[in-house]
């Protein structure tokens, strides 16, 4: 009977929705297309790059990925298991607090720990004072290293694994675990031989998201002096002014990313099989002995403490020391810039999301689904790559416009696209459309087709249905879409850094600049503002999770 709803249009001609969806997808794919076109173009620096740094980029990236897999994976799976299966004091509170590190951009946690643990930081200062040593006379691990970067990433990216693994553990049939117990497996064997393998697709999906973020990171590796693709692209572009080589590096990075997308898609599809029932299942409560409960509590508090609380407290301490200097009119300019940019991008990204979601609803077809998949791939593409992919075609377009106007009107228009906020909004839309689309689709899912029909059978025309049925039901989701994109744009660093108009600063860019100038304490007000705003979607997320747990329809 579903057929009936799918057949509002009987003509085989592509509908307006399909055409609009196709056009929109094409436009959003421009950056990737631009990079692919340049892939085989000749570049004078290319062979030089291959000879010198390419291997280093690859090796560093692989090390980072391996480290984050172990770090974020280990923390994520352990905390997910403990909070979903075991009973210990503070579990309910911790199960959402553990999401908080999501609010902390990796580059900000990197600045904070550097400030704390560097040679000039309070800890080493205290060591020197307490033991009467001077610099070089004692060993202390170097924060600004690849190992440090791995720890930073693990501390803020584990929530991806945590979230998905937890959902998988909760969704698992408790019977399966109980069966394994009756078959003579103890708890640990059940965990490692049954629960984890069953949740593996979810864990892999979470890990691939964490690894995408790792590859996309620019601020942390740049600050730590770890050469990876993102820093390489930036250097090639701004240092050597070699657009071709930069795009070619981007293409190689895209290759890595594409592998991760495949991994994620594949594991998500497999993850489907395990949710055989929609029924609400009571969580198993493995009661822990006092000692075990204490260990579990410590294991869950540890990532929260070092991934969120310690850096936030440090930021607050710095901000208290410097706010009277930093909170001048320029700071409010930053806030205003960040705010308008983020709000603008959130609204702009909502438009294609609405078109694609409604297209899929009104005219569901393979093509339409394909377009929404394709156009929401941007979430995996590093900001640096999108920036390069956006700059090339729009820069070329600007040059064409200027050449044209010079010849015909003897004047230059200036950088019409690439020098303005337009190009930033476009890049953000490419990168964050999937976030927006997911929310809109989730909201629209709640409006069943029969609700449209019901309203129309009661005398409402299409406009009235939109206003009185759709809008009230999806309004919350639209707001969520706006808020999440808003916050993501707020935190975004590399694309903003590369694409911003001249002398146009945001909080993220300013924090980066101050930190690069070793003015860590001064960067804290901007950083703290970003973290504070970043908490909003975490709260939304944890509310959404707990609501879906209640088993309500």
């Amino acid at each position, binding site marked *: *009977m579903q*057929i*009936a709803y799918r*057949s509002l249009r*009987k003509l085989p001609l592509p509908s307006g929705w399909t055409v609009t969806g196709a056009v929109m997808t094409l436009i959003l794919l421009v950056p990737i297309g631009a990079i692919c076109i340049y892939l085989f173009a000749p570049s004078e620096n290319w062979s030089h790059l291959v000879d010198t740094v390419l291997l280093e980029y690859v090796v560093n990236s692989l090390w980072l990925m391996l480290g984050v897999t172990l770090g974020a994976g280990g923390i994520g799976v352990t905390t997910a298991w403990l909070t979903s299966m075991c009973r210990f004091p503070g579990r309910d509170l911790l199960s959402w607090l553990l999401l908080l590190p999501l609010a902390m951009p990796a580059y900000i946690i990197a600045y904070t720990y550097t400030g704390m643990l560097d040679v000039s930081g309070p800890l080493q200062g205290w060591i020197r004072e307490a033991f009467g040593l001077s610099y070089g006379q004692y060993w202390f691990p170097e924060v600004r290293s690849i190992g440090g970067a791995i720890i930073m990433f693990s501390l803020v990216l584990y929530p991806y694994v945590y979230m998905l693994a937890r959902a998988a553990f909760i969704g698992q049939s408790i019977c399966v675990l109980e069966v394994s117990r009756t078959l003579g497996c103890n708890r640990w064997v059940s965990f490692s031989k049954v629960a984890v393998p069953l949740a593996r697709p979810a864990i892999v999906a979470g890990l691939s998201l964490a690894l995408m973020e790792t590859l996309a990171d620019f601020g942390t590796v740049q600050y730590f002096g770890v050469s990876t693709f993102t820093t390489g692209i930036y250097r090639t572009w701004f240092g050597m002014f070699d657009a071709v080589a930069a795009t070619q590096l981007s293409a190689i990075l895209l290759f890595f990313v594409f592998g991760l997308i495949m991994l994620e898609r594949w594991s998500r599809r497999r993850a489907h099989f395990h949710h055989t029932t929609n029924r609400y299942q009571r969580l198993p409560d493995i009661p822990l002995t006092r000692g075990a409960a204490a260990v579990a509590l410590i294991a869950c508090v540890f990532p929260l403490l070092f991934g969120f609380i310690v850096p936030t407290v440090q930021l607050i301490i710095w901000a208290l020391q410097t706010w009277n200097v930093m909170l001048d009119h320029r700071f409010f300019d930053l806030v205003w810039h960040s705010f308008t940019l983020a709000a603008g991008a959130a609204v702009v990204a909502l438009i294609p999301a609405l078109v694609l979601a409604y297209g899929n609803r009104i005219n569901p077809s393979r093509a339409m689904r394909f377009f929404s998949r394709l156009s929401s791939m941007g979430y995996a593409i590093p900001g640096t790559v999108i920036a390069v992919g956006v700059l090339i075609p729009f820069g070329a377009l600007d040059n064409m416009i200027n050449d044209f106007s010079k010849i015909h009107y003897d004047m230059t228009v200036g950088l019409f696209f690439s020098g303005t906020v337009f190009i930033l909004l476009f890049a953000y839309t490419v990168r964050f459309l999937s976030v927006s689309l997911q929310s809109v689709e989730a909201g629209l899912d*709640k409006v*069943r087709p*029969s*609700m449209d*029909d*019901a*309203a*129309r*059978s*009661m*005398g*409402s*025309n299409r406009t009235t249905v939109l206003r*009185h*049925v759709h809008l*009230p*039901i999806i309004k919350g989701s639209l707001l969520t879409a706006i808020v999440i994109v808003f916050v993501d744009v707020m935190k975004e660093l590399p694309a903003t850094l590369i694409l911003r108009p001249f002398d146009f600063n945001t909080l993220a860019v300013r924090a980066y600049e101050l930190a690069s100038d070793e003015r860590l304490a001064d960067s804290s007000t901007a950083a703290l503002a970003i973290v504070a705003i970043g908490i909003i979607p975490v709260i939304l997320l944890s509310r959404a999770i707990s609501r879906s747990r209640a088993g*309500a*329809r």
Partner: protein
Amino acid sequence: MMSNSHLEIIDIKINLGGKRVVDTVSLSLNKGEIGSLLGPTGCGKTSLLRAVAGFEKPDQGRILIRKQEVSGPKEHLSPERRNIGMVFQDLALFPHLTVAGNVGFGIRDREADVIRRRVSQLLEMVNLESYAEMYPHELSGGQQQRVALIRAIAPEPDVLLLDEPFSGQDMERREQLARELREALRQTGVTALLVTHDQMEAFAFSDLMGVMSQGKLLQWDTVYNLYHWPRERYVAEFVGRGVFIQAKVLDEHRLETGLGVITGHMSTSYPENTPVDLLIRPDDVRYDPQGEVKAHVESSAFRGADHLYTLVIKDGFRVVCHVPSHYTFEPGKEISISLDLQHLVVFPSVHN
């Protein structure tokens, strides 16, 4: 067609995705009559209902509501302009509105006072007065059902359409709900058309009933006739239980069967000696200790008030028979029965 028909469907054809899902269907309902369309999944009944509602555009044929053409060669009125009410399979209650908000949705343009009175009158009718300010998800399945119904009839539609409205309910509750709904509809005097694949629902609900198969409406008749005078073999098999036994026509009123000569009013007349299949319903077979026909119990199903026995009469004839629960026979036992056939429903034999 009858002159006072309230809903008239004339030779409707609907193609979907290159397939004819509704094939030349006609039916009509008078004011206040309740009709059901019965058929298996995919028989086209829902498409027909959606065509009446205006969600599906028929490729051919006409639909008239109160003598006004709403679908036809020239006209295809959009759903909102047909003055129909519809109850959906998933009920489609608006989650963002209270019960009162849902019920009042179709009349929200009227005066606040009028809306309030109408809503409370309807809620009272289905005993939900105290639920007005609750949200749909706080209600039980049966309560949601009633809200969906009164929401659909609040604007006083000319025709009420119901698309498998009971399918989300428990099996045991369906019949009762159908009867409750029927009572509510009787009070309002609305003309209604129900689509279902559950015949008990249809029996409990309707005056007129039709069986659809592969897009065709095989028979549109009273509930009684559909059961006792099925005009097609498919209808006989789909509605109610029963078995066919082979027979030969002797004359207009007599059949020769393995159980002897049976006399009665025959549904269709065939020439002498035509081999036919005779329909025997469970209620045509009576347990009768004095009965002449002997049969062996093959299997039995306990159904509470009665047993449903499958009996083997000599030569492998099988019939089914309801026997009150306090008579219990083990499989293999021989019992006496008598046939009580007032009407002989026969179809051309498929055995030869």
